[in-house]
């Protein structure tokens, strides 16, 4: 049996290739180098990080490889670590500076449970308002967008900044819109009550009731894979209850809606009446490839409905 020690690093990769089956960058390149296995093997064979820049750039950090690795290697973490040694693109660096400035003087966070919307949801004010109303919780003005971007691009995270951010969150129930930030918060705040946006909305009766068997439901991959063991049951129940189909493959790994190719692959051979997404960013991707209505989960319920029900 493989070791169950966790987390493990790339030297433990024995090349079983199971990560290729679920990897979007492998699907688009069909080249063994473009896979977590390829990266781990390259490192085992002494490749410098700079030689791997193309592959590291191609990874969408969906985290699909983590739950399938029989060696329990933290493959997502390995890739994020390697990205730290690849210089960020100028536009990414500029964006991060902007986020950092915005986070420098946040308003005081409201008391109680908090939504950390993340950059994509924050960019759609109408949708954000709807989400807040449905969940009935406050919104953090500092949602760690700079930290989330740093995780994404391999940028540095100032320890002081991280500490103050986590202090602000300490002890609260959190709904986190950014899947990558959620992944890290699970490590940084062990024991905290954390939910992804999709799970939180999907637990609302007003939304759950409106998911129909003809719908195609797109699970946000990062949040899902970061807590796969638990969430697989949540989505399985949702699938059974509503009869909808989902972007989960035969291994119950999520195909990420990161680009049009992946979205098209998800929809191949399927004719849904509607597409429901958890991530606002994926709504735009599906609108480009699907000839049917694409709705964010929050758009399923009428505003105020959940509160009235409560």
């Amino acid at each position, binding site marked *: 049996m493989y070791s169950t020690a966790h987390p493990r690093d790339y030297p433990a990769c024995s090349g079983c290739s*199971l990560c290729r089956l679920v990897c979007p960058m492998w699907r688009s390149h069909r080249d*063994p180098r473009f896979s977590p*296995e390829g990266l781990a093997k390259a490192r085992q*064979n002494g490749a410098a990080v700079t030689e791997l820049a193309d592959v590291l750039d191609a990874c969408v950090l969906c985290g699909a490889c983590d739950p399938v690795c*029989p060696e329990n290697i933290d493959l997502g973490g390995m890739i994020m670590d390697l990205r730290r040694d690849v210089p960020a693109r100028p536009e990414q660096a500029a964006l991060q500076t902007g986020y950092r400035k915005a986070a420098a003087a946040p308003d005081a966070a409201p008391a109680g449970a908090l939504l950390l919307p993340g950059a994509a949801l924050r960019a759609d004010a109408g949708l954000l308002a709807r989400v807040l109303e449905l969940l009935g919780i406050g919104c953090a003005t500092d949602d760690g967008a700079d930290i989330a971007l740093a995780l994404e691009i391999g940028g540095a995270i100032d320890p002081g900044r991280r500490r103050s951010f986590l202090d602000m969150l300490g002890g609260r129930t959190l709904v986190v819109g950014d899947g990558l930030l959620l992944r890290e918060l699970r490590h940084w705040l062990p024991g905290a009550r954390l939910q992804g946006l999709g799970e939180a909305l999907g637990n609302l009766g007003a939304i759950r009731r409106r998911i129909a068997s003809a719908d195609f439901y797109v699970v946000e991959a990062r949040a899902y894979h970061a807590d796969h063991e638990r969430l697989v049951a949540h989505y399985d129940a949702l699938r059974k209850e509503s009869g909808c189909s989902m972007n989960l493959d*035969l291994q119950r790994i999520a195909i990420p809606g990161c680009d049009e190719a992946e979205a098209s692959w998800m929809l191949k051979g399927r004719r849904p009446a509607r597409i429901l997404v958890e991530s606002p960013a994926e709504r735009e991707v599906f609108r480009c490839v699907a000839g049917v209505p694409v709705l964010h989960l929050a758009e399923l319920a009428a505003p105020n409905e959940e509160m009235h029900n409560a």
Partner: protein
Amino acid sequence: MAPDALQGIVRQQTNAARWNGAGWPDFVAALCAAGVEVAESAATRGIFATDAGGTAYGLPHGVVVARSAAQVAGLLQAAQAHRVPVTVRGGGLTTEGESVAYGGVLLDMTGMSRVLAIDADALTVRTEAGIYWHGLAEELRRAGLDYLSAPLNMTSSVGGTLGVGGIDVNSARLGCSADQAISLQVVTPTGEIVECSDSENAELFQRVILGYGQFGVITEATLKIRPYTPLSMHYYYYSTLRSAIEDLQMLDANDASDYSGILTIMDCAVNLLVAFDSSEREAAFKANWEQRLRGHGEFGFALCMAGHYALRPWKAGEALYLLKRKQAVFPEFRRPEFHRDGRMEDRTVVFSRAVWKHWGSRNMVIPDLATSADKFIDAVERGNAVCRKFFPHYTLYCVGIKLRPEHKPHYEMSCVPPDAEGWAYGCEFEPMIEDAVYSRDHFQSFKNAIYDIGVDLGASYYRFGGMMKGYIRRVFGDALVDKHLAMKRRADPAMILNRDVIF
């Protein structure tokens, strides 16, 4: 190591010799001029340093990712001209180094892994041959269809499997994967692109099917498919191998189930699995066959075991191991997300996950014996005794393979034993390596001890190539091997294609 393990074995050099690299730069230049990328970095070559077995090591000089039949043809033509060996690799799930390149080019077929056409009326699929069976299943399921039979391992490829066999838990009914191929596109070792089937270029078809990649690279395949059904699974537990195998063969001979196989924890807990595609078949089994099985249900078996070990306290260690193993493995086969309404949605996902998690390790030696039905119990019992001698813990996996008389020419010099009629039976003997460290000599002696049984019984093996190729002449005899070697020399004058696997 067992003192008698090497008895009667001529110690031959079975590890392939590394190719010396003569003419490599000219060869690469020729390929580059033809627009073929050859990856030469250590990082890329290192991906292919070993196979699933993890005991054979070799680095290619360069890697080519297959993109089209024309590109593969160009590669093989150049390889013939420059006498550069080409090793083809699909999933790389061999364990004897058959898909490891000891120099030369490693041709990675997974670059050709797209489904080309599904014909739901004719129930056929045309696919590129580097596709993983799991990838094929993902596409077929969208159309409510499924492949017939494939290895219970998600990362085996169609092309690699058609060349070696492909055994599923429905093979006792539907035959091996290689029997599901209707036609193939093959690039011959000299670089011609040829379509072949039982009616078109039949001789090539016969040699490529179950041919261990000796007579061509399979680039596309047309396979039979069927409507998809989830399956309902039943488990029966035995404390002896003999009674479980007798019951397995009884079920197979009477077409009493759609799926059947034996999976064990050593020889103490022997699990006969029986499964069905439809409620009708399940009901017929329950009415006619179930009461004839001598196995117990899980609870009944637990009681038997408790009684057995209560009377043998000195075997407490074994009892504890069985209990621990049961607790670890059983839930894996019952995970709710892979079942709906009590039916298993995808057997390969469930078994493959369990295999990698609970049987896999960085070193895997899985010697096997393939025999006719009547020799099978003897083979398994003798193999089991060898396992007991070499390893504290191990597992056996037994399954039947329905043979197709009209495919006899396909079976020549393959894993199908020459004397088998109706069904062949295979047993894999897999030690649990766990955290132990064994030398290569220990593994090799174990494999030899198992393979010696095959020589003695007149059996065959699923994994007879690579490091075990020393057995090929002993089991098949010089006349047959020389006949195939002559065919190989005609088809592959420079002997470049998968040259270390068989001959």
